[in-house]
């Protein structure tokens, strides 16, 4: 490995190699693989089939992106809290992982324009005595550590001054804890909530109304300084919508009219 680095830098130094000013996009095209960070316990965006192979909206999205780049896709499973570390640490090239575009995160990584949008709902268990969002006050609730809805829910619990918030390291652990009764409710994106309830995988889970949070726009993520890459990704997202592929994937995994990805009265 070391020799290749030395060789590579020698080639680069003498201008013989192609990597003289290679950016991420060049690297991906040269290596022939696109490594996507995908969260696989977040159906329908990402999950595993009966043979434990990755499937889902994000998996298809990554495959489309790889096809556009003319390379093969490699799905790297990353739990939610690990998405950005995986990207920053160079384990993956791009995150196709339903990442909310918060300003705090944008200090560390680069976001594309939104490629999906979520609304959040309250997911609870039969007999937990929760009928609407405010009923969660005083209960034990949980969510995935560091996610958009997780941070909001923890703030709510602090505001109410009653109840307990438990951060888990993966979405699967949250659902497991909820179905076992370790926690009484969680706030989760509506698509995921309906997919989970419809799957029948967990017994007795119920959706109880919307959480009063703003629409959660999610973008693809790449390294902050990789403008070439980010530019390409923006155009790719635009093309996915323009070509109807976005709606097609939405029909396949969720169903209905795909959410609008633009915000009124302002440019992105």
């Amino acid at each position, binding site marked *: 490995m070391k020799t290749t680095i030395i060789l590579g830098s020698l080639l680069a130094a003498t201008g013989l190699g192609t990597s003289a000013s290679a950016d991420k996009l060049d690297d991906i095209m040269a290596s022939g693989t696109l490594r996507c960070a995908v969260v696989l316990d977040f159906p329908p965006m990402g999950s595993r089939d009966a043979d434990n192979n990755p499937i889902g909206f994000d998996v298809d999205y990554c495959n489309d992106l790889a096809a556009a780049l003319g390379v093969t896709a490699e799905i790297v499973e990353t739990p939610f*809290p690990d998405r*950005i*570390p995986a990207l*920053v*640490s160079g384990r993956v090239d791009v995150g196709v992982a339903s990442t909310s575009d918060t300003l*705090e*995160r944008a*200090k*560390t*990584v680069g976001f594309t324009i939104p490629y999906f949008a979520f609304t959040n709902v309250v997911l609870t268990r039969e007999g937990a005595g929760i009928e609407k969002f405010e009923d969660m006050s005083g209960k034990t609730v*949980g969510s995935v*550590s*560091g996610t958009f809805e997780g*941070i909001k829910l923890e703030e709510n619990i602090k505001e109410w001054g009653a109840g307990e918030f*438990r*951060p*888990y*390291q993966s979405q699967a*652990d949250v659902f*497991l*804890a909820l179905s*076992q*009764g*370790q926690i009484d409710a969680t706030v989760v994106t509506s698509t995921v909530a309906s997919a989970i309830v419809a799957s029948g995988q967990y017994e007795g889970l119920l959706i109880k109304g919307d959480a009063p949070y703003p629409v959660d726009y999610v973008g693809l993520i790449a390294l902050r*300084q990789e403008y070439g890459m980010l530019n390409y990704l923006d155009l790719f997202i635009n093309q996915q919508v323009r070509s109807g592929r976005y709606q097609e994937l939405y029909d396949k995994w969720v169903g209905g009219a795909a959410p609008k990805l633009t915000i009124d009265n302002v440019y992105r």
Partner: protein
Amino acid sequence: MFNYTFQWRQALQKLPLLLDGALVTLQIALLSMAMGIAFAVVLAVARNAKSRWASAPASAWIEVSRNTPALFQIYMAHFGLGSFGIYLSPYVALLAGITFNNAGYLAETFRGALRAIPGTQMRAARSLGMTSIQAFRLIIMPQMFRIAFLPTTNQMVWAILMTSLGVTVGMNSDLAGVTQDINVRSFRTFEIFAIAAVIYYLIAKAVTLGARLLASRLFRY
């Protein structure tokens, strides 16, 4: 050299939060050790007992705790027991997992120490009119603790290190939990974990030093 700008200021601002977490870490480690030692004495005696009803469960506890990962044991305490409707909060699950582990390892340490105490002492104590419980408590146990002191200190350091595993079952108040919480918000992974590492190191050193002082006071001839 590095294509990265370290943001130490941002991370150091969180130091008070991390120190609060360190206290919780120390608390769990101490509690799990106190309970672990109590269980371990019982397990050590039970495993040596002639009755299979006493030795078999003790052996099972000891072997399972020593032959599966601590992370597995903690995960089991939270999600495994959860499927029987037994809900342990992350704090209790972590405490239970580490206590289970401590007890198993310490039981073997104590058993080794018991072997090193000559059998004649028990007989001598009994012939002086002590009951077997008195003899064990007053003659055998103090010697056992003395022989096992160093390995017990090591286990204490292990207990501190094991508390970091609580983050996998939703623990967010101990040092590792606080660290991860700050990490997922700011993504300054290296800086924040480096500070946590220093704190862990200092706790471990303080405990070792404290144990040495304790030993020099307790075990003076």
